[in-house]
């Protein structure tokens, strides 16, 4: 794929507010036309700053941003033609819903009938056709959210930015809106850049997810890749639940390695980003990939475990056990008809495959 195919490009973008610390460090990101890309990360990771630079509200300290092959660093926000849904919607409180939607069309000097038909179409798209004459304050949070989406789309932008648009909604409404936004994306084919700190939101909606931390994209991948194949310990820990075992690299063979854990046990793991024998490594293992009392010989990794705590969660049973010197080892046992019946204090065997256990770098543990 050549450079020309990308719709939005960040090239070596850096951003600093105070001239002393970098909020965004050397960002390179290419976004294809029609893609739904999510910037995911904890607060303060620089994801919103990237969005603001793209929208034009913050100038990039260094580097270039391209939109449709045009450098846009010097283009003021109102000439970029990018739609945006703000965190608290930023619906103009002194205008009705119709006036809010007509605003971007009026400043573009469209004629009256055109404005009317487009406004109506956009409102119908978010199923709020009957609410055109209300003020934003007379709408519920979910309705305001829809209006904000409609307003960002009403002038047919090629690119829409969304800055944690669902943060203020309750869980049920949030899930419903996720699907609606996803469907709008699919039916209109616009490019969407979405910022959130909610990983399930990111996994549900995105084509690709850029995981941000400390001003750097830690990994850019499709949702399933991100979950199944995290490239570093931060991503493994940030996306989904994760058991971490720490130790030294004992030996490396091809794409596999053997790690000697701190308690002396040896684990066979998939080598991801450990470089040399003797390095510290973090092993990452998803709780649902551990099997209880497996058939002998099925897995290269088989360890004795003591069940410490059982939590019944309906579809699965969350089991905390002591394995290899770690007392916070979590296993999810599916509540299937033949699942292993365990009691607290039982001594059992835990086994897992080499491919599911990923040897990663070491993060300075913060939590």
């Amino acid at each position: 794929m050549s450079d020309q195919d990308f719709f939005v490009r960040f090239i070596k973008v850096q951003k600093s507010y105070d001239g002393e610390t970098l909020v965004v460090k050397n960002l390179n990101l290419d976004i294809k036309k029609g893609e739904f890309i999510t910037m995911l990360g904890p607060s303060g990771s620089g994801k919103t700053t990237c969005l603001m630079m793209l929208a034009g509200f913050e100038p990039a300290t260094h580097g270039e941003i391209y939109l449709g092959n045009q450098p846009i660093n010097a283009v003021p926000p109102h000439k970029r033609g990018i739609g945006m849904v703000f965190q608290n919607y930023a619906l103009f409180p002194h205008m009705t819903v119709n006036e809010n939607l007509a605003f971007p069309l009026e400043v573009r000097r469209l004629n009256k009938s055109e404005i009317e038909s487009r406004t109506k179409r956009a409102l119908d798209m978010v199923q709020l056709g009957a609410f055109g004459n209300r003020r934003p304050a007379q709408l519920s949070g979910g309705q305001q959210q829809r209006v904000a989406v409609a307003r960002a789309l009403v002038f047919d932008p090629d690119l829409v930015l969304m800055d944690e648009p669902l943060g203020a909604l309750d869980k049920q409404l949030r899930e419903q809106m996720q699907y609606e936004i996803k469907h709008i994306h699919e039916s209109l084919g616009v490019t969407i850049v979405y910022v959130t700190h909610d990983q399930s939101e990111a996994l549900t909606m995105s084509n690709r997810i850029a995981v941000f931390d400390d001003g750097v994209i830690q990994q850019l991948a499709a949702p399933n890749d991100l979950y199944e194949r995290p490239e570093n310990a931060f991503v493994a820990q940030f996306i989904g639940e994760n058991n971490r075992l720490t130790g030294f690299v004992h030996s490396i063979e091809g794409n596999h390695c053997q790690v000697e854990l701190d308690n002396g046990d040896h684990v066979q793991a998939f080598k991801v980003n450990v470089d040399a024998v003797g390095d510290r490594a973090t092993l990452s293992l998803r709780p649902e990939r551990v099997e209880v009392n497996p058939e002998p010989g099925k897995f290269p990794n088989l360890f004795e475990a003591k069940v410490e705590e059982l939590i019944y969660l309906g579809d699965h049973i969350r089991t905390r056990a002591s394995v290899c010197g770690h007392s916070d080892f979590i296993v999810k046992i599916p509540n299937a008809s033949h699942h292993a019946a365990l009691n607290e204090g039982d001594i059992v065997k835990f086994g897992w495959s080499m491919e599911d256990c990923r040897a990663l770098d070491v993060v300075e543990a913060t939590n």
Partner: protein
Amino acid sequence: MTNSPPVSVQPLLTADGIPLKTSLQRSMRRSKLRAICLVLPPLIFLLGLFIIPIGNLLTRSTDDTLINYQLPLTFAMIDQWDRKTLPEEDLFEAIYLDLSSLNKYLISDNFSDAVDPSDPAWRVRIPKKGPYRDAMIAIDPRWQSASTWLPIHEIAMVGVNAQGTERERENKARRAQFNICAYLTPLTNADCTKLYKVLQAWDGASAPDETFFNALYKDLSSANKFLVGKSSTRMNYGKPGFKSLIKKSSRKLKKVSEPPYRDAMIKADKRWGDVAFWQTLVTMQEPQTTGYYLNAVDRKWNKDHEIELQPAERRVYAMLWWRTFLVSLIVTVGCLILAYPVAHLLATLPLRYSNILMICVLMPFWTSLLVRIVAWMVMLQQEGVINDTLVMLGLPDENRLPMMYNFTGTVIVMIQILLPFMILPIYSVMKTIPPNYMKAAQNLGATPAIAFLRVYMPQTLPGIGAGVILVFIVAIGYYITPELVGGKDGRLIGNMVAYHMQKSLNWGLAAAMGSILLAGILMLYWIYDKIVGIDNMKLG
């Protein structure tokens, strides 16, 4: 509950069987009582210091009863006059009696419609040197019975029986003397010392003798002089020259005791022969007058009871009203233009800088008004800072700008003084507008200018409205600044109100002007409510 079928028709009961409503009321009573107690002091404060004085102001601006007390007979008879030719002897007699005789105080009912000109009591003469008793009883026989004197005696005894320190007793005694006069006459500031002295010794039952009537005559005479003075001032408002006419003729008329009065009065002062003075009297006949209000807008009643313009040389107020309105308007607009960017800075700068700016805004607020005005005098005068700077920059010395003791000076200083009243409400509204709106507007394709005009500014309207109303209302009644830097053509209506309160003592006119100001402000408020809506106003 509306959809469910009624469970029972009986009222809801609490667990103890008391009706729920009773129980609720009982539980709320305490908090209600507390709320009333909290509201009471400001309510009393408002009533005592605001509503009652304003009510007093309103009544004073139309009150014309004093002159009706002075000229009961004249006003009762003036309706028969044709208002064109010089009045006949009977009207001259009436005004002579009203001004010089005491009969009007002695006749029990002598006010307004109750006056009967045919009553011979009006024409009973009280010999100047006495004895007074018989003549006074002839005017109204009730004076011979002790019961007529009893109320006066009671008022006097309040002073006599006063307790406390010597000073307090003295004050009480003087108050009693004033109260006696207030009982007998419409005056509250004349004192009846002689009656007080005589009544002190009275037992309250024995028949009043000549000493009583002597005291009554003397006290009423001095009170009458007082009343003549006051009412002649009032007549002077109607037609200039009336006061001197009354003063001069009452001096000369002392010698006249016999009819015909007409020739004697015209001889005493030939202005009595001028129909215009008599026509002026007609306009004062009603106990309620709109004359003060008309005067406040350079108009008056003429003899045919029509409103007409004051003569050209007496037209001052209409121009003053217009100037007051103009100054208030310019000051309000000026404040708005200066305050808006400052308020915006205050609301958007980082806290560190906005705090400093806020102090700069509030500092003048904490400084004495007088100090600020004097500082402006230093700046604006002919040899002041601004003119000196301009001369230094090349302005010819003889062309120094006149910026003080005129319209310009008033406007400049008032804008500076009233600026915080505009900044603060606008700031408080701007503070609540998230910066996201401007961003959203620009993101939707609006240039910064359009985003400001269509998205930001409409949201600051409640603050602008509050500031405009506040500044305009304060400016329209402003007094101290125009007084000090206004000079001749920087004077406003407020200065006129002060002048009539303090110098000319024409309180009726001052009250009328105040009432017009009040009405203007209320109207403004009403217009604002119609256009913007008062509930949209945010004062902070």
